[in-house]
């Protein structure tokens, strides 16, 4: 079943000025239910723009985005969030630093439940939070009252991941969520991510700089450059590829594309 569909998306920044930049050019991508797609590409390839458009932070100039066959192209971010869980690159970005762990978790519950005047951290919820944190096994279970601003980057990212996923979103968006962490922590978060996605069978779109990670994780890989998808690999192809293969593939495609431009110019 098709869960996320992007059709012929176009996005231009600073249109009509000398700084005009075509961020996304005619991009189409479909995620089936249960797909875990990793997106790689160099800086400025349009990966983050793509993710922001799926989340509703940016609206496309042209094209259509649908989730579960609902057209959500211009549905504002806060309404679309009902179906989407997100983890950001910056560990500061996904949590409220001056609120406690339990208050952050209660806030995350509001993603799918309508907010009313009931107590945010009720005793029932508190027990639930404790259980979920114990399952996550990152040593936060006994620190429910701790302000999130006092946690380390890795702990915050683990909490962000939990907050984005424990309400079982239809779609999970990960925006280089391990890039700001040291190698050991990054690996830890990567492992947790894989566990959480597998357990909840979450459909996921993950942007990363790390080609190794992109090959290890997920069942599909997408390579972007200059706002377009230039290469796709399915689970089978992905398994047989190394980072070296990916780099060669990238250069080969880009080289060919340049050659094409040259031949066009000659005509």
């Amino acid at each position, binding site marked *: 079943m098709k869960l996320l569909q992007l059709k012929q998306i176009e996005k231009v920044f600073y249109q009509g000025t000398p700084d005009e930049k075509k961020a996304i050019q005619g991009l189409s991508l479909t995620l089936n239910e249960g797909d875990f797609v990793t997106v790689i590409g160099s800086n400025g390839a349009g990966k983050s723009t793509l993710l922001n458009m799926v989340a509703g932070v940016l609206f496309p100039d042209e094209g259509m985005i649908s989730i579960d066959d609902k057209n959500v192209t211009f549905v504002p971010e*806060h309404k679309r*969030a009902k179906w989407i869980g997100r983890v950001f690159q910056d560990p500061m970005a996904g949590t409220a630093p*001056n609120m406690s762990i339990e208050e*952050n978790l209660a806030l*995350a519950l509001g*993603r799918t439940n309508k*907010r009313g005047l009931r*107590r945010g951290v009720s005793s029932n919820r508190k027990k639930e939070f404790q259980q979920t944190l114990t399952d996550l096994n990152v040593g936060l279970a006994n620190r429910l009252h701790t302000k999130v601003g006092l946690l380390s980057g890795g702990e915050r990212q683990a909490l962000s991941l939990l907050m984005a996923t424990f309400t079982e979103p239809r779609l999970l968006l990960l925006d280089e969520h391990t890039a700001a962490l040291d190698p050991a922590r990054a690996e830890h978060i990567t492992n947790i991510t894989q566990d959480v996605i597998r357990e909840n069978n979450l459909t996921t779109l993950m942007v990363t700089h790390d080609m190794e990670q992109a090959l290890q994780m997920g069942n599909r890989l997408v390579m972007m450059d200059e706002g377009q998808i230039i290469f796709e690999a399915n689970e089978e192809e992905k398994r047989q590829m190394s980072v070296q293969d990916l780099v060669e593939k990238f250069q080969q495609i880009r080289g060919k594309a340049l050659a094409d431009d040259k031949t066009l110019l000659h005509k």
Partner: protein
Amino acid sequence: MVSALFGAMESGLIYAIMALGVYLTFRILDFPDLTVDGSFVTGGAVTSVMIVSGISPVLATIAGGAAGFLAGCVTGLLHTKGKINSLLAGILMMIALYSINLRIMGRPNIPLLNETTALNQGRSLWDAMQLDSIISSPLKAIGLSSFLPTSFFILVSIGIVVIIVKKALDWFLHTDNGLALRATGDNAKMVKSFSANTSNYVIFGLGLSNALVAFSGSLIVQYNGFADVGLGIGMIIVGLASVIIGEGIFGKKSIARTTLAVVLGAIVYRVILAVAMQLEFVKASDLKLITAIIVTGALVLPNMWSSWRERSERMKKQKAMQQSLDEERRNEVATAQTD
């Protein structure tokens, strides 16, 4: 002196409601809202006009608060929908409210001395129950009779109102909506990703804050016995002073602790002001200057104090180290001489 102190505590309690409103915008929403200078008067203006035209004073007080709520919402709309910078949105609303307040009042000053206010009504009930003598008698028994005010009515009744407002605010800030409001001021980007419409929370938060401010203005007008269009000048500074002094002295560990600190801060501020006004060379017209000095002091002194302590601590350690070095050298010299 004693009556001045009691007066300061009474008005401090009334201003505490305003300070809670300022706390809500300044600290919770992280929105420096200058609407306060205008909405404080709006509350008083609406209440006094309604009282003069014979409407029930309790109803008039509620209406005053409601007017403040609307004013705050407009500031919120200017900021969220009109994309106007938060400071500028507040200043625009403050200026606009000055004219609006004059329109509401019809003249710059409305006396209420001969009108029945909500406070008068409560007072006659209070006197009928002879509560003053019940409170005073044990105090008189321990020889405090010369320190007693004429009545405890304002302290007790406004005190109860302030406790109710504080408790209600504490409760609200821990509900699901309250958490979203707090997170909006803490990390707006993140709240949006959790299905919260941050614009609505900013608008509502500003409305609630200004409702409290206007409610306080409405009570002050009834307490003073007159409404004046210039009553709100510098009110935001008074509010900030209460928040900063309160947090500085009484701490800000949790929401409940901070709201208590803000209330006490408002009272402390009034008491400092009353003491300053007792000084002989201080004139009534120096009030605003003293306000500015108190706020500056509250902002600067805690920093200076902590950096001074840090420095003296450092000096002490340096001295101890120097001493032990000197000791060592002396020992070395001594051993060299014995050789």
